[in-house]
């Protein structure tokens, strides 16, 4: 479910892309500092988006560094981070931990379980610090399993679980912007769930796994239904984003929300079209 909230690099100014990478590197650096190598492995662009969103909303002072990173030792990388990055790093761990546990339950993959165990102690501290977020992630995953078992067809219901989860994750603190942040998280979560299910549809059908879109793919207007549904989610997400008084990094954030989130969906559709032609 990760890797959808990315930027459309071709449509970004170079300067903006470099800023984007600075945040990404800053998050990586924070994950490494707080959770070591196993934490660093949890880095994602999706949570980099949350990081940039929060930083731009609160405009707290950032620490800047130019450092060599182990993955890219050739040259120094510019990175920025602060307390908000620490929150985002904690959320990376939280989300991945429960996902790993869930994957282990489904697939009995030993590496997944080992990964989860390695993070267990860190997760316990995060659960204490952020009980609301932890509860939301746990509930989402357990309720998703229930819906999968009964082969739920209601799109709002299943996607709403990821929506609810992300709404809590986006709730960095309680203040005058909490409602907007939760709504952005909610609709982005619904989008991510539905686009991921669409991209995985063929694979899930092959493997006999649950996929909510299976209930609709027989429809003649299936492709239009998927695209309209996804557009509905992003339009609500973007609408609430536009209400925030964000003046920094807004071009980066808009690139992601209006274009970047569609990159993998478009790639998937292109592949489909190529596939049917051949």
């Amino acid at each position, binding site marked *: 479910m990760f890797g959808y909230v990315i930027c459309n690099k071709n449509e970004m100014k170079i300067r903006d892309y470099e800023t984007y990478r600075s945040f990404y590197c800053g998050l990586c650096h924070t994950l490494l500092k707080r959770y070591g*190598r196993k934490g660093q492995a949890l880095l994602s662009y999706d949570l980099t988006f949350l990081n940039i969103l929060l930083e731009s909303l609160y405009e707290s002072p950032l620490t800047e560094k130019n450092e060599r990173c182990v993955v890219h030792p050739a040259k120094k990388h510019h990175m920025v981070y602060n307390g908000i990055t620490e929150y985002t790093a904690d959320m990376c761990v939280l989300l991945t931990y429960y996902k790993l546990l869930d994957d282990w339950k489904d697939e009995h993959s030993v590496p997944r379980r080992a990964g989860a165990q390695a993070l267990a102690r860190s997760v316990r501290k995060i659960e204490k610090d952020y009980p609301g977020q932890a509860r939301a992630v746990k509930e989402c995953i357990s309720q998703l399993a229930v819906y999968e078992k009964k082969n739920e067809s209601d799109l709002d219901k299943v996607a709403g679980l990821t929506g609810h989860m992300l709404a809590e994750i986006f709730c960095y603190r309680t203040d005058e912007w909490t*409602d907007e942040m939760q709504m952005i998280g909610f609709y982005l979560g619904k989008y991510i769930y539905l686009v991921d299910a669409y991209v995985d549809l063929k694979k899930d059908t092959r493997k006999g796994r649950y996929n909510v879109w299976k209930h609709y793919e027989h429809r003649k207007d299936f492709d239009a239904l998927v695209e309209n549904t996804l557009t509905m989610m992003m339009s609500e997400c973007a609408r609430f984003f536009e209400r925030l008084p964000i003046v920094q990094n807004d071009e980066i954030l808009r690139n992601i929300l209006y*274009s970047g989130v*569609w990159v993998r969906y478009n790639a998937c559709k292109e*592949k489909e079209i190529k596939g049917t032609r051949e």
Partner: protein
Amino acid sequence: MIADPYKVLGVREDVTDQELKKAYRELSKKYHPDANPNDPKAAEERFKDIQEAYRQITDARERGVSAYGREPEPASYGQTGSGRQYSYKEYSSASSAFEDFFTQWQRAQQEAQRQSWQQQGTSYSGSEHYDNVIRAAYNYINANRYFEAVNALNGISAAERDAQWYYVSAIANQGAGNNITAMQYAKRAVDMDPSNYLYAQLLQRLQGGGERYQSRGAIYSPASSGSGWCLSMIALNLLCNCFGNGFFC
């Protein structure tokens, strides 16, 4: 409601969104209670006004109406007075785009009710149970309790669901975050009663969001996988992730 929100923020009516946000940020920093230890109470009052002015203009721009304050709605319209248009904690997310709606259909409903009660003393649509449910749903919606509205409405059997049911359920579901269901129900309401302008207006509002989003997104050319960018992004992500215990590989 603030009579002149532009004055509060020190901006002109034709201020750009960007300038509006900048103005808000500067003022809210200045009047944040934490930044005013000498007189936090006065600062807080000013801060609230600044917040409300910003919200008022943002709401109005979203809906394409004037941002200048109107007479406050009388209490009998059932406004909670909490000042917030939506609250996720109650599983609700009222689109403030519906504020005008509620005012309109509240008046229409009250008028219809007044007429029917005057005329016959019997309900104007279906069973008494149905009327009670619709009335309860309206009350829940007014109080931003959308989850409860949806539950109440789902108590009506499929056979009894008429255009009005679909219309009210669309509003309730939209508020509860079930926007796919809301769109379906709004379409159904219009199909069942095409002459009803409220139903058509609701559908138009729900569809308008998508149109606005697509026109804003049109300035970006879609990334084609042929450019290799997409694959390289994902590969880069995996590379950074794989360094470590490699449980994603």
